[in-house]
């Protein structure tokens, strides 16, 4: 794998965020590899093992695709009408890169507005693999820097 610059990584992360924020759910799930995982670990145990602990989100590829499809439906009541979503990404670091993959970390604030506005403060790790001129996501782990999901109450959008 090439020696990627932070700018290349940032371009990709901003692209993913734009797809989520503009509700392009199919294009979003197509960013993921077929062995991908999308995780939100328990707030108090961000390093927990998904095979033993109760997570908030523990999606394999099948379920993250279904999550994306669900969010396009009127019957996903919580997101119909769609809320307004905006991702703010910063402190992007390349943690490591090898021939196979690049591991990145960043901080993220996500705003969701519907009736009121909820704020999700998080730090995120992603494992990316090369895909032509861009990347695919093999792993995305979103760790919530909150005391509890209060007053947000839920994670009904993609973080």
């Amino acid at each position, binding site marked *: 794998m090439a020696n990627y610059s932070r700018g290349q990584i940032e371009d990709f992360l901003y692209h993913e965020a734009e797809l989520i924020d503009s509700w392009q759910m199919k294009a979003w799930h197509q960013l993921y590899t077929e062995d991908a995982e999308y995780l939100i670990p328990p707030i108090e145990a961000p390093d927990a093992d998904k095979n033993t602990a*109760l*997570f*908030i989100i*523990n999606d394999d590829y099948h*379920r993250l695709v279904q999550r994306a499809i669900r969010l396009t439906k009127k*019957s*996903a009541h919580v997101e119909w009408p769609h809320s307004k979503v905006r991702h703010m990404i910063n402190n992007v670091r390349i943690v490591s890169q090898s021939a196979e993959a690049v591991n990145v970390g960043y901080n993220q604030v996500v705003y969701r507005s519907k009736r009121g506005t909820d704020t999700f403060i998080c730090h995120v790790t992603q494992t990316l693999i090369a895909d032509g001129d861009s990347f695919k996501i093999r792993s995305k782990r979103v760790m919530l820097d909150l005391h509890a999901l209060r007053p947000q*109450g839920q994670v009904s959008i993609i973080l």
Partner: protein
Amino acid sequence: MNMPLDRGPDGFIRDDRQNNEFLVPRQAFTSDEVLAAERERIFSTCWIYAAHASEIPENNDYVSRKVGGRELIIARDSDGNINAMFNTCSHRGAMVGREPKGNNKALVCPYHGWTFNMAGKMVGQPADSGFPDDFFADGKKDLTHPAHVDVYRDFIFVNFDRAAGTLVDYLADAADYLDIVADQSAIGMEVTEGWQEYSMDANWKLLVENSADGYHAITTHASYFDYLQATNGAFRTDFNPTDVGGRCYSLGNGHAVIEYGAPWGRPVAQWVPQWGDEGKVAVEKLKADLVERHGEERAARIAEKNRNILIFPNLVINDIMALTIRTFQPISTDYMEIRAVSLAPKEEHPDVRRYRQYNFLEFLGPAGFATPDDVEMLQLCQMGYQNMPEVVWNDISKGMNRAENMGDDELQMRSFWRRWNELMSA
């Protein structure tokens, strides 16, 4: 207490068994006076679930959390006894337990250093003068305990009323259902790592109603059923959808349950093709063990039936594609805090544990494929209640016209509300 509810012949509800109509006043969800009365007449007199014994397995383990509007510490002391204490220093009131869980030989108040052992006994403070020699000797500066703490099959409950009856009498027929939960393990159930703490902008009783509501599933959760349809092997192959129906039972003292067939996999113990051949071996072994311990009939009931159990006033145990203990605390009339955990057999095979934790999240929790839509419905209800005084009543009549209640009837809510009404309108 001066409640703004209109008192009729049945109290604050309308329980018309002639015309099979059951009505609940919407002001019960919006009035500050009603919530204040609930704190006094319900949360200060009923047995309130506090913790599961597996959360404090070792001596000197403790958890601290809101229970029934109080801040409590539930601790296992150095002799292994389970204690409940109010989380407030006997000196000037600061909370002495500041972590959600821990293991300490003593709780040291961070304000002036008053120190208590894990049974709540005052054992020291830093000043060497200013108090008579025997000032702390008679226990009057110990942490205060709720009037009662008792444990049923590892479920720890407290009661703040000195005059309360026993826990087992209070549980009435719901005790049988706690047995069915506890009997899923030969050696004991445990709360797994990771808790879900979230909130809803809705009255706490809306979540009571919703947690065992079979009627809303096909409408509210249409997108969840789409997900199941799109998931290879998520259903048992021999499942007959007409079996789902199930039954609803009132269990006494406001407790109730719906019990129904499970189309999906159950970690204890109903295999589905999604879990593969190895999973089949593990789950069939579990089923065989259940048969050995409990006989064919009870084993089949434990393994293949789902149960949504309501224990009055604020404990929900959903024994479905995973097992959740969910409890919730009213903060204001339109805001509650919710805490949910996953319960599993201590001896569970790692593969089965993995299915359990994966399955749990397909439906349940603040990012599941169903719970967020429930939250949305409850918040829509709460907002709809602003249309008072013109629109006064909720209807909870479904199934009143038949003797045996179906799983999608509303008997379980009527059971809750009848008990609520007895306590509130007495």
